[in-house]
């Protein structure tokens, strides 16, 4: 499921037993990346509990707004700062992704983390996401794509049927996957 960007505002519920402080009136606004608002709220409660001594029953979400991004057909470079719980300890990381939206960039980072470090959604915290101009990118994987005259062949291509109706269980001929053109 594609990731989305949510802006969530919430607060700690006032407790009559506790003396009221000015800080109790504060609303906490966070940008959360998640596949749906339910998961987003869960993540929000988690972060809020890191900041304040709260849990689901002692805090409330005031609003959940999905951010509709503009211009999702332009490729951008994103730098993502994240923190994840590895099997040995907490690790901070800076990663770069090329995507057309922030949410898509974060999604690809989650996939990347799962692939390279076997890190699950729960163990990853996205700290900050920023669009980075090309000349400030660092990672070679991004840099090679930034090359203005990028050009590469597709040496291994598997021809697939153009629709489900045309798929066959058996083929008369072996597929040729090495296209040298």
């Amino acid at each position, binding site marked *: 499921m594609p990731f989305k960007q949510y802006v969530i505002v919430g607060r700690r519920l006032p407790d009559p037993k506790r003396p009221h402080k000015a800080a109790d009136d504060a609303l906490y606004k966070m940008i959360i990346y998640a596949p749906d608002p339910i998961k987003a709220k869960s993540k929000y409660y988690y972060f809020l509990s890191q900041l304040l001594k709260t849990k689901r029953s002692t805090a409330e979400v005031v609003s959940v707004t999905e951010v509709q991004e503009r211009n999702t057909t332009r490729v951008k470079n994103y730098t993502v700062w994240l923190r994840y719980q590895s099997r040995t300890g907490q690790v901070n990381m800076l990663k770069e992704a090329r995507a057309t939206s922030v949410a898509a960039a974060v999604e690809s980072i989650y996939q990347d983390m799962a692939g390279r470090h076997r890190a699950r959604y729960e163990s990853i915290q996205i700290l900050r996401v920023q669009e980075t101009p090309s000349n400030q990118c660092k990672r070679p994987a991004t840099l090679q794509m930034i090359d203005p005259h990028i050009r590469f062949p597709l040496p291994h291509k598997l021809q697939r049927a153009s629709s*489900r109706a045309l798929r066959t269980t058996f083929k008369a001929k072996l597929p040729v996957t090495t296209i040298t053109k």
Partner: protein
Amino acid sequence: MAKEPVRLYCKGLVLGYRRSQRRQHPQQARVQIEGVKTRQDTVFYAGKRVAYVYKAKTEKHTRKGTLTRHRCIWGKIIGAHGNTGVVRVKFARNIPPSAFGKRVRVMLYPSNI
């Protein structure tokens, strides 16, 4: 039977009864029609008549009065089964298990084109 000069039916294959793991419904048979690969394709065949033509030992009178060994069980396509183009067919008399894997004719009528 002499080959008919024209083929006005699609070739179908009886796969078995409609069933779950431990229960089967002999009232409905699953039929795979040649060239029908998706659920969307089956829409065209909904309601079409199906004929299971087979040979028996005893000769019977036809309506014309001649004797023939050929018999037929008629059925009707009542809907799709799954997403791979298989259809469910209700036959006038439940189709015998000996018909599994046999050919049925999927007629082009009632037509809606």
